[in-house]
């Protein structure tokens, strides 16, 4: 048992009949870090999280939470964390206030403490105005916020969030990120799952990429991105006679460029400042550009890159 770890996962495996949903996954999560589990649909993120949070028995392997084995000391482990599941785990038929009161009481708070905590959380999550509406009238974002508020009742040192922003609009998503950052600032350890590279990049100190139940790669966002194919610049010229000239300009600035058709040039693009230089040179040579785009690496690229067999 290591005191620096909030969570230790060792050789964790889950089989559903023949299907191996999580396959021999091991990692450690440090106290105070934001740990992202990144993977596409069906990768095994939820299954891993459910095993970590005592909801699902592992087929084999171990998980400890602050040193407590989730299988052997499940109550002790449960007292250590808050969980926000992938699907809303609040009561639809009752109000936000009632939800918070009930979950506070179930968490062992006295009636007075529960009342106080409920008001605090409603205020903190800007839900005070809708506190007495039933959840079925809530928007997706409000529901998510309430869900998170419920997980924070006991101010747990460790918080699990399963896809906290899936299905939220961009603005609500940014708000959720803000909330998560605030929790981090207060010193919580956070384990979150996501399908989005930018979200993991934005929030996580370390990311574990999983696919088909296997841990593909673990590291800081920066180290992961190094493995990922870079952004690409795609540039088309209006006049196909000028394409070679344009290609030379792009090559000077970006080191390499390929012609993919009569008018389009594709080049690896890692320094955004270069774009102005390229455009200025093109202008100087009076080459007119008909189309220009920068393609960010997608999650698909990450997986292709990380899961592709290495040739050399």
């Amino acid at each position, binding site marked *: 048992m290591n005191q620096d770890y909030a969570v230790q996962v060792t050789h964790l495996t889950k089989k559903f009949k023949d299907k191996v949903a999580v396959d021999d996954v091991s990692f450690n999560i440090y106290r105070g870090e934001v740990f992202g589990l990144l993977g596409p649909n069906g990768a095994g993120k939820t299954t891993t999280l*459910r095993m970590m*949070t*005592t*909801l*699902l*028995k592992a087929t084999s392997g171990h998980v400890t939470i602050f040193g407590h084995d989730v299988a052997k000391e499940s*109550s002790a482990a*449960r*007292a250590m*964390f808050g*969980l926000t*599941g992938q*699907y*809303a*785990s*609040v*009561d*639809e*038929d*009752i*109000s936000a206030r*009632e939800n918070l009161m*009930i*979950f506070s*009481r*179930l*968490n*062992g*708070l*006295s009636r007075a*403490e529960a009342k*106080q*905590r409920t008001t605090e959380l409603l205020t903190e999550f800007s839900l005070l105005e809708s506190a007495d509406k*039933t959840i079925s009238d809530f928007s997706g974002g409000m529901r998510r916020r309430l869900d998170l508020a*419920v997980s924070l*009742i*006991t*101010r747990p040192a460790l918080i699990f969030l399963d896809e906290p922003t899936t299905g939220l609009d961009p603005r609500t998503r940014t708000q959720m990120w803000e909330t998560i950052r605030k929790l981090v600032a207060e010193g919580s350890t956070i384990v979150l799952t996501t399908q989005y590279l930018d979200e993991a990049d934005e929030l996580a100190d370390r990311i574990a990429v999983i696919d088909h139940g296997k841990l593909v790669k673990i590291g800081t966002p920066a180290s992961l991105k190094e493995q990922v194919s870079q952004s690409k610049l795609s540039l088309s010229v209006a006049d196909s006679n000028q394409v070679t000239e344009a290609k030379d300009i792009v090559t000077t600035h970006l080191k390499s460029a390929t012609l993919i058709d009569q008018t389009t040039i594709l080049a690896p693009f890692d320094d955004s400042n270069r774009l102005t230089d390229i455009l200025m040179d093109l202008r100087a040579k009076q080459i007119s550009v008909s189309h220009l785009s920068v393609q960010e690496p997608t999650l698909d690229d990450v997986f292709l890159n990380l899961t592709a067999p290495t040739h050399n």
Partner: protein
Amino acid sequence: MEIKQTRSNLIMNTATMAYRNLLKTVHNPDRFMDVIIQPVMFMMLFGYLFGGAIAGGVKAYLPTIVPGILIQTMLSAATGSGAQIREDLDSGVFDRFKSLPMAHIAPLAGQLFADSLRLLIATITSLTTGYLMGWRPDVGFQWIIVIALLAIFMGWAISWVFALFGLLAKSATMVQSISMMGMMMLSFLSNAFIPIHTLPKFMQVLANLNPITFVITAIRQILANGAWTSESLIVLAFGIGIVVVFAPLTVWAYNHNN
């Protein structure tokens, strides 16, 4: 503020869970409609339609069907527990309950305690409808209370069976349709509405084996004699037996629901 967690307390957790289920009902009063409409509808339909044919009059038929419909309503209210539990399990709220450091059985127990309110309402509705239609038992009011409590207890015991079914079944719809059929079979293939001796031989065998028949007989005897009979003791013991067997099974299924 430092939050200290008191040790998980089964009784308090169960009370909170029962409160939750009651709140759900307060926000959705239609959850009570089935246990109110069903006994009224059946009592009037059966009383006025078949009263004359079976007993020569509504009034003469009431001592037969009031206990019959009372128990049928208990059965049907008990089936509701199973559907409710299945719905809860599918909704993700149970995941939250399970991840809390609280008594594991509390969500189940809370559900089943809150359901006794449904049973109480169903009982009051059944007996009141009977009274309004002219049902006047010869025994004192205390015996009415006794049969009401016995009916509620039996309904509550049976709700553990349906809760187990709710836990094991695949979907809430499946729970509802199968429970509905079970409820129909059990209540019609019994002495709830008709004297058993009028049935074909093989059906008589089934009806006489039907536990619902025993419960209804026990209640009729208490109402006829104003006394606690040995039949009613057997029925009570049977009810306790159901709880003793099914409560642990249900809790076990609940804990192994992954």
